């Protein structure tokens, strides 16, 4: 698996099809039961590092409500973290800072088959998380 996963996509929009222009996506890693937080296993090359409890990242959206791709925004994949069954609490804000989507519990996965380090958040079904 890759070191971290780049998030793309989203197409955040309202029910009339109006995109959440220049909004912000905020991901907060769920709390680990371990006092140490999560341990992240990076297989290329193999290393192990600690990810703090409450790890958090804010990602800007473009004018179409999609995650900005340049620069790339990377997050830890949940299926590369120990202990298992972690998830992110995800919030989406419009450009005025108003919460328009979330908070929803979502997973971010990396994959070796097919091999990819890209995750399209448009495929999230709100509050549907997968046990790892």
């Amino acid at each position, binding site marked *: 698996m890759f070191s971290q996963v780049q998030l793309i996509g989203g197409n955040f929009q309202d029910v009339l099809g109006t995109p959440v222009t220049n909004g912000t996506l905020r991901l907060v890693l769920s709390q680990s039961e371990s006092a140490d937080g999560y341990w992240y296993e990076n297989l290329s090359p193999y290393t192990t590092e600690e990810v703090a409890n409450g790890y958090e990242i804010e990602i800007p959206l473009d004018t179409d409500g999609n995650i900005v791709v340049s620069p790339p925004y990377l997050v830890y994949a949940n299926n590369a973290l120990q202990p298992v069954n972690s998830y992110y609490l995800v919030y989406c804000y*419009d450009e005025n800072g108003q919460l328009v989507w979330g908070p929803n519990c979502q997973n971010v996965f990396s994959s070796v088959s097919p091999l990819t380090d890209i995750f399209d958040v*448009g495929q999230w*079904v709100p509050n549907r998380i997968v046990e790892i």
Partner: protein
Amino acid sequence: MALNVNFGITPNTLPWMASAMAFKSVDGYIAKIITGQGYGTSSFNFSIFGGPNVGDLLVLNCQYAVDSTSTTGPLTFSDSAGNTYNAGPQEFYTDINGNTYSLQQFWSLITTSPGYLTLDSSGFYITGGTEPPLFLGTCAYEIYTGDTVISFEDSNSSQGTSGDASVVINPVSPTPTVIGACLVDGLATAFPPGVSISYEPPFTGYLYSGGAYGIGDTTQIAAWAGVYIVYSNPVLGVTIYADDQTKCFGTEFIFNGTEFTNTPLQPGDYITSCTITSDGSPADAPAGSYPVIISDAVGHGLDKYEIGYIEGTMTVSICPPPSCQLVDFPLPGPYTDPSGQPITNGTVSIRLVFDCNCPCADYQITGNNHSILQLDGDGIIIGSPQIRPNNQLKPDGSYYILQVYTESGQLIYGPRKLVI
């Protein structure tokens, strides 16, 4: 007097009608039975008229009875085309009340289309009968193309009823033909389908079923020694057609063994399942056409049939993804207050009950925000807004919450649950 078939009338049931009622349905047809009675004074005219879905009518077994103490002339059976049909011999019957009837059966014998009578709006007639009372017992028929409403009439008065029934077509008994002789000599002998041997001299033989016959138990040869006559019986045939199928690429099609149709069997025989396969069944089968292979029919009484299997076709297509189009907002107005006055310059607030995903295009649909639609001076939504229909959204079960506000911001209607 014409009467529509009345399902509420209980027919006069005579004991001999019981056998006539013992019908069995035939695949592909809608079996019906009609009963009625007429009381002619000088003549009798019983007609069956087709309804709006007139099709081919198969009259299988009409029988009527008349009071044999009356003078009743021969009845004539005909259709509107002027065809006449054979009637069986008269038989006399005494019912449980001691009344004597003349029972005559009638079968349709159609020369142009065997077994079928084309029923048109002109009807089908049974005429004759010079003295009352005449009782028309039962007439079982099948509508070949669709159901129809049947009405019937006689020259004076009538009553009748009709309802679903099943119809038996009695098979013609095959006539065996002697084709040779077979010597029981200790060797198991298999015969092709349709060939059997005589049972004389008697023995508790072991005639193989499954389409082939033979004398299998060689330990009994001494007891069975003799020369047997070999018969060739008419071989019954049935053709089983695998149903054609269509599916989208990416979906798996699982056969349950019943996706077939077959030509009619003899009464009591049936096919429950077949082995059906197709290379187009797996989800990853590329778009194209694939044969549907059918074999190994399972059922009852099939060992006396020579079974033909006809392949079907499975068509695998690239199906378009479900529509991701917005649809017109279904409530454009005008919006009015309880007194019927338009909500001038008001607003309509529409909100999704929870965040959703539109998987057909990987859209995330926000549920936390209210979308505001502006009303004009007539209370009609300005513009032609479109909205995401709920059946595009995941999780299932989403809906909208609609609220209407006056120009001053007062909530005047709602919240109302709305599924689009």
